[in-house]
């Protein structure tokens, strides 16, 4: 199944890939992938290593250009032009080891002039980090770096959130809290595309599950999001078992599943 598009209906698409292929030399990382991403949905990309998940995210982020096919993000054929509206989180923290988390975020915030950004302290609190922690990022644990990296992405309040393996290096509780946060983020027509090997972790917020195999879309299935309703606070540090972190809460909101 190479060309699968979700039904856009009357909604404006957040992003659309049409017959996109990406070649690295003679190796095809993506082969004629077609997808339509609707606003306000969470898409979970699954697939083995080398299936093309990261390449797909980097193309959506405008960091890679497709070898063939077209990409439109927010209606623009060159994602670079709308990069301020896109947040991209990679495997690597994308932050400086020699600066504190606050300093890193202050730096990146000032690279988004004219955009209503969160303050660094707000972004850090959202991911459960102490804004007053005066420690260089190089001294953070992997999990804390991952949170700081997410704080950087959230800082500019992007409308399209691209997360490459956000749960790697995280313990189960931290990963669950991140899912809560993402569920809150999805409100307001914000779109999330995330890759993971831990399907069960992302399942509570997955509107669609896309499986890639050898650069092709092997399946495109509707998910069954259990959280993500408007009542979800999406803050880290909520007490386990509190209403906002109860996986059952908001589960009644079943989204339209296509195709």
């Amino acid at each position, binding site marked *: 199944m190479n060309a699968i598009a979700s039904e856009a209906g009357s909604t404006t698409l957040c992003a659309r890939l049409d017959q996109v292929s990406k070649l690295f030399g003679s190796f095809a990382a993506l082969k004629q992938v077609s997808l339509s991403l609707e606003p306000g949905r969470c898409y979970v990309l699954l697939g083995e290593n080398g299936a093309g998940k990261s390449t797909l995210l980097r193309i959506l982020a*405008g960091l890679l250009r497709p070898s063939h096919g077209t990409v439109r993000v927010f209606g623009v054929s060159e994602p670079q032009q709308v*990069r301020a509206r896109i947040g991209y989180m*990679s495997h*690597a923290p994308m932050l400086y080891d020699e600066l504190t988390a606050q300093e890193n975020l202050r730096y*990146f915030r*000032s*690279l988004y*002039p004219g955009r209503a950004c969160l303050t660094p302290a707000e972004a850090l609190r959202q991911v459960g980090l102490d804004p007053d922690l005066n420690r260089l990022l190089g001294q953070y644990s992997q999990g804390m770096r991952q949170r700081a990296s997410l704080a950087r992405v959230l800082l500019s309040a992007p409308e399209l959130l691209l997360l490459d393996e956000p749960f790697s290096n995280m313990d189960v509780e931290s990963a669950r809290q991140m899912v809560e946060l993402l569920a809150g983020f999805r409100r307001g027509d914000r779109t999330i595309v995330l890759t993971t090997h831990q399907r069960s972790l992302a399942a509570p917020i997955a509107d669609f599950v896309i499986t890639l195999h050898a650069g092709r879309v092997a399946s495109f299935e509707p998910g069954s999001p259990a959280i993500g309703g408007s009542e979800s606070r999406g803050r880290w540090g909520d007490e386990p078992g509190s209403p906002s972190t109860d996986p059952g809460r908001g589960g009644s909101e079943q989204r339209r599943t296509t195709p």
Partner: protein
Amino acid sequence: MTRALFTHLAKDLRIEWRSKEAVNSMLFFALLVVVLFSLAFDPRGAFSRDIAGGVLCVATMFASVSALNQAWAREIRHQVLDAQRMAPTPGADMFLAKVLANFLFVTIVQIVLAPVFVVMYNLHILGEAWKLLLVLPLGTWALVANGTFFAALSIRSRNRELLLPLILFPIFIPALLAMVQATGAILTGDSDPTLWIKMLLGYDIVFTTASLLLFDVVLHAE
């Protein structure tokens, strides 16, 4: 010039202040070159004035290569460059900030090196010494503007440490020649360095403009 330029510059200076990687490596390397040359040639009197300009320029040139590579390696280390590419600010700001930061680092090294140089080479400047205040900054700018650009170009290469000098040094030859000739003219007082200073200025304008115009292409290259 936009606010982003100062943001990038402040970040680069802050990181260097904490790590001192660039300045320390450059300083020790340049000192080593100066000392080795002084031992190899036993420079005295007129001979020292003849070779001093060349030794100073070559020492600065070799020393700055490591710092220029480090400047971009830091951005690549945790894919920070990708985050910067996603930001809606012009790449030229980032480039110019890097050039300014590298210029400052090399200048600091030259300031520390100068008294050592005068002592080791027993220098007595016979020309108009103040003109060195034109020659050295202009020559340094030529080196770091080109070096920063080509370091960015070669940063994704596996052999970047080797690639940078291979690209940079041939292109830097006209500026090196002008710098050496102007410095020699000032030290010996034999000729007027004005022509060489003008040449350096022209070189700086041309290459800085070209680098600024092309940097976005380099930044977003795959």
